[in-house]
């Protein structure tokens, strides 16, 4: 506590903290928000300059086309020496001196065939109708044949310039062909990968469906078993209740029997006591009878004696 006059609420690094009633969950939510908003340090550290020789990624996220190359750039004499790396992959539309199928390229590029580039110095017409036109050309060529040396002399510088330009354009064309092939190859590769990923997703979805079904099935089975167990428990409880009732009745009967037995036992006991008393009394009477017999005997003897004395 370093503050001499603490405030109730204080903001630290834009977080609102109520010190008197701190709520960790709310505070952590604020921290999570701050962490999400903070610039990712890892990204700053790991973003390395792109390799200048690498091709731009053809991924959908990076689909913004690069700026079109200037015609002067394409015709630069050193363009043939440079590696075909950082060159833009925009479809060539205006640079080819030879109108052909490539000039009408429209996406998707990968579906189009790549025609071979014509030789830049070919004297043959690159394209054109046959027949009348060729005959006219032949006649004209024959007519102007005597003037060829003069024409060559006059047209040589222009011819040289044209030749250089065509050469340059040819090289550019070759480079574009290479890039086009590369693009085609990459697209095929990515298509294959996308297809493979799609297949994997399909397989996983199928698996997920199976698992979900299995899960549902298991839950159902579990519920059924739970129900069976519940029913069994209920039945057992009912049986227990019934058994308890029977047991209660039998216990009552048993109690009655016990009372009766107890009564009989008391009776037996009393009878034994009475019999014992009677036996003792009988013994006493027997003894008295014996005494009386003896007394009588004595008296008879005395009577006899007295009679004898009186007779004397």
């Amino acid at each position, binding site marked *: *506590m*370093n*503050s001499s006059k*603490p405030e109730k609420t*204080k903001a*630290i*690094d834009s*977080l609102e*903290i109520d*010190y008197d009633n*701190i*709520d*960790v*969950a709310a*505070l*952590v939510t604020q*921290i*999570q928000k*701050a*962490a*999400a908003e*903070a610039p*990712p*340090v*890892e990204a700053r550290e790991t973003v390395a300059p792109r390799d200048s020789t690498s091709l731009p990624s053809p991924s959908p996220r990076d689909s913004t086309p690069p700026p079109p190359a200037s015609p002067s750039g394409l015709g630069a004499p050193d363009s043939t020496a440079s590696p075909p790396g950082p060159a833009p992959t925009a479809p060539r539309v205006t640079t080819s001196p030879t109108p052909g199928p490539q000039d009408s390229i429209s996406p998707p590029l990968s579906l189009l065939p790549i025609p071979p580039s014509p030789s830049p110095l070919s004297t043959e017409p690159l394209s054109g109708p046959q027949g009348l036109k060729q005959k006219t050309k032949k006649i004209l060529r024959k007519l102007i044949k005597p003037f060829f040396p003069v024409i060559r002399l006059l047209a040589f510088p222009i011819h040289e310039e044209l030749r250089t330009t065509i050469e340059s354009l040819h090289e550019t064309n070759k480079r574009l062909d290479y890039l086009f092939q590369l693009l085609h190859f990459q697209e095929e590769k990515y298509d294959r990968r996308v297809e493979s990923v799609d297949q994997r997703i399909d397989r996983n979805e199928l698996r997920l469906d199976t698992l979900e079904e299995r899960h549902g099935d298991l839950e159902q089975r579990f519920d059924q078993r739970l129900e069976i167990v519940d029913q069994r428990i209920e039945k057992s409880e009912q049986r227990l209740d019934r058994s308890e009732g029977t047991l209660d009745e039998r216990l009552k009967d048993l109690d009655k029997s016990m009372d009766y037995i107890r009564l009989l036992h008391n009776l037996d006991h009393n009878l034994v006591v009475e019999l014992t008393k009677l036996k003792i009394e009988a013994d006493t009477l027997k003894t008295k009878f014996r005494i009386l017999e003896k007394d009588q005997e004595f008296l008879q003897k005395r009577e006899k004696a007295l009679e004898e004395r009186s007779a004397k």
Partner: protein
Amino acid sequence: MTIAFVVQRYGLEINGGAELHCRWVAEHMRKYMPVEVLTSCAHDYITWRNHYPESEEVINDIRVRRFPVTKPRRPEKFGRLQNYILQHEHREKDELAWLEEEGPTSPKLIHFIRKHESDYDYFIFFSYRYYHAYWGIHTVPGKSILVPTAEHDPVIHLKIFRDLFRMPRAFIYNSEEERVMIQTLSRNQSVPGLVVGVGTEVPSSFSAERFRQKHGVDGPYMIYVGRIDQNKGCPHLFDHFLRFKKDTGSDIKLVLIGNTVLKIPSHPDIRHLGFLPEEDKFDALSGAELLVMPSFYESLSMVTLEAWALGRAVLANAHCEVLKGQCQRSNGGLYYENYPEFREALKLLLASPRLRAVLGENGKAYYDANYTWDIIEKKYLAIMNELGAGR
């Protein structure tokens, strides 16, 4: 009433979480009733090799009966078995084979429990995942109380444990999260259970200055106490700490206390002091700015409670639900899920001594309300009385 505490290892020099927990509870319950401890002869928790003799001894006035381990654990085979049962469909037989390999396999202990069941009123088993608890509870289910010390560990999902969790007479949980996890897994709501946890022995005096002088630590430092291990999230801690230092230029140091099974990065601001006595540990905790707990799996985290007992704030790994729940319930610590959150939370804690103090106070109040020994003892007695009344 006589109680037997059944635990995998026992001894004054054993500092594993569940084992220490058991010893402390046993020593405190001794005041109320005769207490005995049934344990193995093992000391090392990796192999469970017999270290102590098979005998009876008295430790802090408690009779301790030790039983030999017949089959030490073979870590490689155990690892293979564990991988197999976690990654493949398998049968209950395989799980039992895994349990036997995990150990500590001590059939004599189980025979003793069976033979002397009538000598004890209750058997309190610690740590659900070991041999002694599984077979012990199967032997005396009617008298068993389980302290599961369960974490979010993959093996908790094994079938044998789901069945086991429905067997004991009662549960003593370490945290609310542990209770919810076990009840969700095993649907054992009908088995009575109480969230109790464990107290801690806070020394009467501690001194941060003494620690700084003794170990040559200066400047502000945050502290980690515990085994320095992959499972405890230490590699992440090192990575986060070093990145934090690099990003913020903070002068905070990281002090590590505990035995290590990892290579600790060599950095002037990371100090590993090894295993320290309790007194030094509390001295170190009292001087720390905060305790950091990067562990992914905890069933309670006694060291977090110790930090709160001393009024220290805590920064915990939110991937561990127990630590996150404890922080939320106590309002005594912050938690993070990834490095940006770690950075922001630590920055905030270091920038605000007042916040640290308030979190520490909240933690202490939470500790006093739930984890003092009086309260723990009462809860243990309450559950035993409840079971006794229901007999």
